């Protein structure tokens, strides 16, 4: 627990990692300097892109004692205002799951190569990043905890008639049997993607396969209720949600 007499220090900076296809992509990396890291987190950004909110959250995890890295999954699209790049990505049907998972794997490899690395690794994501976090926990090796915040599109794959079908050809729910770590999910009851019905379907699948999970459905909250810079912000639910995130990581990563 934090007390005001503690000395604190952290470093946060842009680094380069090797991702999908051995491409060099940028990532934002933060770590505490005053204490041994208690765990490591890979943050998978949302559809609005590699933006200020995700940089802040990366530092938030470092503040709480974690090595935290957030790769720019849209690096290959070019550089500019995050919203402009995100809008282009959305118009192109998002990014391919294989590419995203390889970039997450690259982030994992970056952490493993750090000379002071000695901790478990978790994944965290919101919106499309929540979907990616679940995919990572099911398809990558070495993940010890997964946090999916309102990840949409878990129960369905792309319409096969769409040109970008091949980017997300498998509904993540189909990988549930392969989930390799505890999962925390936070959702808003007023969200339509994922809707409460879709969350229930995912929960049923987790039960069927006997997985270790913890889902919370917040009333009076919709999609993105942690985003303090957007009208969808719900203060009480967000404060409680963050407590649940860190309690979950305390239990699963140490």
């Amino acid at each position: 627990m934090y007390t005001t007499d503690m000395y604190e220090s952290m470093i946060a900076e842009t680094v380069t990692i090797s991702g999908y296809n051995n491409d060099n992509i940028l990532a934002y990396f933060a770590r505490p300097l005053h204490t041994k890291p208690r765990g490591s987190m890979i943050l998978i950004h949302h559809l609005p892109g590699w933006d200020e909110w995700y940089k802040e959250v990366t530092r938030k995890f470092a503040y709480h004692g974690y090595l935290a890295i957030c790769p720019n999954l849209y690096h290959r699209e070019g550089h500019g205002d995050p919203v402009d790049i995100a809008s282009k990505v959305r118009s192109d049907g998002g990014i391919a799951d294989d590419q995203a998972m390889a970039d997450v794997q690259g982030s994992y490899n970056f952490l493993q190569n750090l000379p002071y690395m000695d901790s478990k690794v978790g994944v965290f994501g919101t919106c499309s990043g929540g979907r990616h976090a679940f995919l990572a926990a099911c398809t990558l090796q070495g993940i010890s905890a997964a946090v999916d915040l309102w990840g949409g599109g878990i129960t369905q794959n792309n319409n096969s008639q769409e040109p970008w079908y091949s980017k997300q050809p498998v509904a993540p729910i189909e990988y549930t049997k392969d989930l390799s770590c505890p999962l925390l999910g936070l959702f808003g009851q007023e969200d339509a993607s994922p809707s409460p019905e879709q969350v229930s379907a995912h929960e049923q699948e987790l039960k069927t396969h006997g997985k270790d999970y913890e889902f919370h459905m917040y009333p009076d909250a919709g999609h993105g209720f942690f985003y303090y810079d957007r009208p969808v912000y719900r203060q009480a639910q967000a404060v409680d949600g963050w407590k649940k995130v860190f309690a979950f990581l305390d239990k699963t990563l140490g």
Partner: protein
Amino acid sequence: MCTMISKTIPIKGSAKESEGWFDINTINISYDHPFKADLGYAINLDIPNQSSDKFSRIILELSPQSASTLIEGLQQVLASGHALDSHSGDSSQKRGLH
């Protein structure tokens, strides 16, 4: 991209941003979470400036009701325009406005 509801449509025209006019040939439409608007979901219109290498684009985020209202308004104005064209013996096709 949470809803997976999006479509790219070829169009023809011009758009203006702070740095001037640019030709447009596609519009991307999605029903998804907006970046800015106070809405859970919005009709998002993304009009890229494909002659620019700076990702310049015009983005509109409309409530679904506003999008419906806009469609109605466009149809009414189009109908009036077509009526004017047929009355004058001219057509939008002749002027290349298609």
